[in-house]
């Protein structure tokens, strides 16, 4: 087996999946629990470095593109519905409703920071998707002793999602060719017509699920309570060291949050994000620790 040439889809493909997973999970969690843009910048830097290292920037941008639509909505709703803040940009009066839309610098910046956080969550999720393939995820779950039925459901949903997309496109082509108008300029009509796609897709997925279940039965799935794992994840001392650093990072993030750091409030009036010395020290420690983890993983890849 060792003679077989391993195909490296990206540099980190053969790394210990648990280490990859936890490291990117950390980057995923930071924008969820912190509100300060400084922490967001740190996360973004690491995401960019990892993406460049693995040459997956283009793939990450796909997730970024999806995020942009949501960001647009966040900004619009915030600006229209949130009138907090003291630095006014514009006031729109709606006489009949006796309502004023007050646009302030605070709401604009607040919505931009929120969008930034959303983008980070999406692209770090994308990074997990790209760098940890479903089979590796399966091994992580079995290491975590998750019930294998649950593991299988997760793996299956990841494995069959692309097939679902391809079915969707085929069904769209078939329905169009049968004379169903799916290219109407009228949005409502278009949405209504899309029903001729959704129902077939559902029927088709159900049908596929029966065939999958049939094939699973025929391959002995569920015959025993326990299931062995082919090439289970193994930890050497180096991996253990990186793992302990990662656990340390999570503890550090918890401490920063519990001490009330990592937050940024714009209201009532706009002010620049500030750091006290202790928070700065903790933050530097977090950056250093993450850098060591990154360099450690990089070093392992190059071995």
């Amino acid at each position, binding site marked *: 087996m060792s003679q077989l040439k391993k195909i490296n889809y990206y540099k980190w493909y053969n790394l210990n999946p648990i280490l990859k997973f936890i490291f990117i999970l950390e980057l995923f969690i930071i924008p969820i629990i912190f509100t300060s843009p400084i922490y967001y910048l740190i996360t973004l830097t690491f995401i960019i470095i990892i993406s460049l290292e693995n040459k997956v920037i283009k793939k990450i941008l796909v997730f970024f593109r999806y995020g942009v639509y949501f960001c647009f909505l966040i900004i619009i709703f915030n600006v229209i519905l949130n009138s907090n803040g003291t630095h006014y940009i514009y006031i729109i009066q709606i006489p009949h409703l006796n309502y004023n839309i007050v646009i302030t610098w605070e709401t604009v910046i607040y919505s931009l920071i929120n969008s930034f956080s959303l983008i980070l969550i999406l692209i770090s999720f994308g990074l997990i998707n790209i760098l940890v*393939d479903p089979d590796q995820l399966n091994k992580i779950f079995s290491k975590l002793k998750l019930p294998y039925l649950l593991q*299988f459901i997760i793996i299956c949903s990841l494995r069959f999602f692309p097939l679902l997309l391809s079915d969707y496109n085929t069904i769209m082509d*078939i329905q169009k060719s049968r004379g169903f108008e799916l290219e109407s300029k009228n949005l409502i009509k278009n949405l209504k017509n899309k029903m001729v796609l959704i129902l077939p897709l559902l029927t088709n997925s159900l049908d596929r699920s029966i065939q999958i279940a049939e094939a699973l*039965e025929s391959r*002995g799935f569920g*015959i*025993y309570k*326990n299931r*062995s794992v082919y090439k289970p994840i193994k930890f050497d001392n180096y991996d253990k060291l990186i793992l302990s650093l990662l656990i340390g990072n999570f503890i550090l993030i918890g401490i920063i949050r519990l001490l009330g750091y990592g937050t940024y409030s714009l209201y009532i009036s706009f002010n620049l994000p500030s750091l006290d010395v202790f928070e700065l020290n903790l933050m530097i420690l977090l950056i250093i620790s993450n850098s060591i983890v990154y360099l450690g993983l990089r070093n392992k890849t190059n071995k």
Partner: protein
Amino acid sequence: MILVLILNHNDQKSIISVRNLYFRYYTRNKLTLENINLDIKKGEFVLLVGASGSGKTTLLRTINGLIPHFYGGFLEGTIIVNGLNPIKTPTREMAKYVGIIFQNPDNQLFMNNVEQEIAFGLENFNFPSDLMEQRINEIIKNYNLENIIHKQISELSGGEKQKVAITAILVLQPEIIIMDEPTSELDPKSTELILSMILHLNKNLGKTIIIAEHIIEKIFPYVDRIVILEDGKVIVNENIRYFFSKKLYLNIMKFKVPFYIQVLETFREKNFEILNQMDNFPLEFNLVLNVLNLIFEKLFNKLKENGKNPIELINIFLKNDENNNQTVTEQNSCLVEINNLLFYYNSNTKLRNKRTKKKNSINNNSLNDEVFESKDIESINQNKLGIIQNKFFLKIENKNFYGGTIVGIIGPNGSGKTTFLKLLNGLLKPIRGDILICGESTKNKTVASLSSKVGLMFQNPNIQFFRDTLYDEFYAILFNYATELNEIKPKIYQLMDYFDILKYKEEYPRYLSQGELQRSSMVSVLLSTPKILALDEPTHGMDAYQKKFLFDFLNEYKVKGNLVFVVSHDIETLINYADRILFFEQGCIKFDGSPSYVLPQLEIHIDKLKNENQYFNQQDSTYFISQSQKLIKSIPILNNLFLNKPKIVSSKKFIEFVKFLLSHLNEN
């Protein structure tokens, strides 16, 4: 001695024994299996044949216990498989002894990576890690999986996926392997790959194999026994050699005799003594060729003795054939006109389509020329397989297609055949140039508006039906076309009746067999009575009888002044029915003409490419040469006589040719 006798006795013991088996699905009123009695010995290779809906799949499901454990129904009778009763033993337990391969490889592979997929079954049976590695290494070595073992499943071709599905079963080392039309969704190249693998399993590893297959041409010489099902009953259960030598197929409707056997039979009918002197009826291809060489030698000698010159006779036959082939298609109106068409896929195709549409609405004459300069087209010509910097392209100069014609489209995978069909019905729009359908450009038309003129039938019928019943499905289509309500029912009934699916009108479409679905799919396309039919691999999953039925219908359809395009890997059927053949290569139409013109040209072209070591390898090339051409090429005496002459490309014509020669023998 006693031990040897006992071993021999055990070898002869049935590994599968079915007695008085009756089965009916809960959802159906009719018995699917009726009084089945079957004994299959260890190491036997059994071919299960039958029209779609005859009960092949159901019988296979009872052997591994999917019936009654997974598919419910009323079951009666006894089955013993490897000493176990699958009716009482759970399917997952039976999996140790019986491996099953299904039609669609995508629905039987669960993991992301090939290696992990092969390990999946072993993990289920709780194998220790080292034993798993040992077994997987053996499988990799024995089945040359080195190149794909670390690939993602999504990266594999259909044939490779099916190969992985088979190896994933083999790793569990089951005694019996059952296969339900494992090649029905594969192209010829992948089919060959899988068939050779199946032969290896039986001949070298001694596995017991039961295969339900509609492509019997390639597999029958290696099979031990043929079992034919009709309406759920076993009507033939015989040794394959006995079956052909005693002409048992004559009593079976819908059984198409393989071509080589037909040629031998033509001679046997005329009491050619060589065949009568033989102890065993020849089935293996090489043996058949040797026998035919002897027969033709003898035939030509006899002709010469009778004062007939074989070369002259060949010339007369070819001349007659040429005269019969002359058809005047220009009498019909031009339904499809292609003007300097250029299309390519990339991430912006959708965007470009929209842009082209917008531009056209402003100025119909200014096409999107700037996207592709002539310089680019030159560079395209130098590329292979129609792929340029990961961009697929299709380039067709001016072509006209007339009504009253069946146009067969052949070519390697990825050469642009399906893309061409999608351009015809407007699913894809040309980047440059134009396609005129009945005189109107497809550029400003939506697919829906074109659908009444161009009916496109897609490849996989399994995902084309969405309603509860077939009738509802067809009703929805006609209703959408704003057909008068009182006309809908008669129209649907008429077409369903013609295609012999009226009996399934209240049936849930997904319960139908592949062949029935294929016919239903045909009906759904014909509902709008389009002038142009575009069919993508319509013969997939069809047996010879159904193919004949379909093409007879297409013949009738074209006579009414309609135009039919058929993309197919099934060269044999196409050359028997198509008036015109297009051979696609590298995104261009390389040859265009009648089958008797295109196929010989193609043979020369492939030989030339092979000599230049180009991308056509030995295996690929055989898919574009007809059986008749292969036969002439492989029989030295015929090859010499046909030197520098157009070869007979159709198997039907070849049989006519043999009869023609024999008739001259009889005259004297």
